[in-house]
């Protein structure tokens, strides 16, 4: 089974020191103090892909859109068991929306003869949650979103479990080739071993620029997007919100008072 797994590099928001500030353009955030990691859901997608490969054979190809600095998340996926990698990198790709992003991914995977394409269901930075399913649409393939479990029925069919509200698991059969967007929590992402890291440094990361994608300039970036990001803003503190200030002793006492006043406890 030949699998593609799409990975995105995102700011590490688990780091408590990560402060988000809008930059001068109003259309970006100051990234100078961020540390970057693989998007959480993508990490689970990588693990699922490697588990499937270990069980059923085949190869895992890691695909990313990003600058050279994104090599660190690509190499880590290779170190965990990925076999090959493609990185789409061109300054013209900047400000790509969901559609333009999916188009870029399509250009990288369409001729690969892959059985299964996986991506995380949601990126932790822009939070669209739509790239995977848009990619399926462009490729004309069936898809399942928010997938938590993947089982192979035979070489044509998969059984996938989608977690719904209340923890209900919806089981579906889906024909390959197909696209799955993977949720967090369905597996336990491994750590790369030293041996894996050493082997990853020998694996090639194929870089595709605009020319290599075969796409026209007006199909990518802002020109190729149907949604244009206008600007970021910090939400204003509303009338119904009360921010408690002071040390934990004071704020917790005040919080207890409010809960009591409102009859919530």
């Amino acid at each position, binding site marked *: 089974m030949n699998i593609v797994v799409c990975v995105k590099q995102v700011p590490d928001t688990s780091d408590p020191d990560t402060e988000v500030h809008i930059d001068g353009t109003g259309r970006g955030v100051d990234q100078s103090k961020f540390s970057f990691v693989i998007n959480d859901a993508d990490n689970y997608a990588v693990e699922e892909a490697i588990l499937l490969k270990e069980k059923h054979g085949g190869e895992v190809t890691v695909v990313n859109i990003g600058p050279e600095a994104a090599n660190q998340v690509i190499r880590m996926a290779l*170190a965990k068991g990925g076999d090959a990698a493609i990185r789409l990198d061109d300054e013209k790709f900047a400000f790509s929306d969901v559609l333009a992003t999916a188009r870029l991914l399509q250009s990288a995977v369409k001729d690969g003869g892959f059985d299964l394409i996986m991506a995380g269901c949601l990126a932790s930075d822009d939070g669209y949650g739509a790239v995977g399913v848009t990619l399926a649409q462009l490729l004309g393939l069936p898809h399942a979103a928010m997938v938590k479990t993947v089982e192979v029925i035979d070489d044509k069919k998969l059984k996938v479990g989608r977690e719904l509200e209340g923890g209900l698991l919806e089981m579906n059969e889906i024909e390959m080739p197909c696209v799955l967007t993977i949720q967090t929590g369905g597996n336990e992402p491994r750590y790369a*071993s*030293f041996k894996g890291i050493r082997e990853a440094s020998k694996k090639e990361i194929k870089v595709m620029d605009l020319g290599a994608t075969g796409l026209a300039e007006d199909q990518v970036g802002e020109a190729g997007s149907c949604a244009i990001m206008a600007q970021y803003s910090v939400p204003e503190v509303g009338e119904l919100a009360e921010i408690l200030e002071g040390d934990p002793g004071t704020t917790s006492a005040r919080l207890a008072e409010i809960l009591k006043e409102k009859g919530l406890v």
Partner: protein
Amino acid sequence: MEFDLNEEQTMFRQMVREFADKEIAPYAEELDGTGEFPYEIQAKMADLGLYGLPIPEEYGGAGADFVTYSIAVEEIGRVSASLSISMAAHTSLGSMPIYLFGTEEQKQRWLVDLAQGRKLGAFGLTEPEAGSDAGATRTTARLAAGEWVINGTKCFITNSGTDITSHVTITAVTGEHGGGKEISNILIPAGTPGFDVAPSYRKMGWHNSDTHELSFTDCRVPEGHLLGERGGGFKAFLKILDCGRIGVAALSVGLAQGCLDESVSYAKSRIQFGQPIGRNQGISFKCADMLVEVELARLATLKAAWLADQGRPYTREAAIAKLFASEAAMRAANSAVQIHGGYGYIEDYPVCRYFRDAKILEIGEGTSEVQRIVLSRMLGL
């Protein structure tokens, strides 16, 4: 000059840090309270190759360089000194002697399991009456009918009593040579009759590292368990200790970094007199000083490791790194507790444990005083 880690080392640091933060840090305090050896975490670390980093792949190791090894010891040491010393002692004292001085047969028999972390190894040098003064070693090994018969006591021996300890290599007097004691290294398998492991010490810190007093009473092992040349024990363990000093230096860097991280985080969030305490120079300068010392300690440690990787002498640099880093760690732990005030004195905050774990760094693998002796002799004094 090149101060950057290479891509492999950078990725490795990232991986070990993530592992330490997710798989060790959340359990470190509870584990410390139990005083038990953390077999589950040890096994996970072994799976990542952490228990055989500088051992070549042909003997089951990772074939990594000493810089990579130092990174691992530091990153684990940042969250748990116990697990870090267990790994470092296993590598430099348990495994390296066999790799450096063992016969091919001994390497195949012992080293492969050690390098893969399925077994742990220990080294017994210190005795109740002989630590740094190795010439005062009293443990004897007498050759009789093709067997070494060992009698004596060793103390403070790390990894010597776990369920997966495979052996302890000891130094023993095997005769006289040129009017002095002939000291040799002998490999004693765990469970050999006459080899007794005392219950764990009640230590100030390093609660999850396994440390025992060992006694040998007419303990017999085959003649072939001699490790290295007969009479070569003194030279051998000096070499082993050099490597061990890089490990303790790296652990010290990790512990000091942990103190710095905790202090900065606390200084930002603790409000007194209407502002974070970190706004007071009395606190912020302590943090700045810690930062300077962590950086210098790390540079000294990585330089010693780098020299070892180049196959060049590194006794001097290992002593410098061990001396400076361990004392810097003690100072950092002291500052970290002070910055935390009363909260630093209770076990709810990790700096309390870091403080208890720091002191031994100035003692193990040669005390600060011994490092100063080594260095002053190098100055011709």
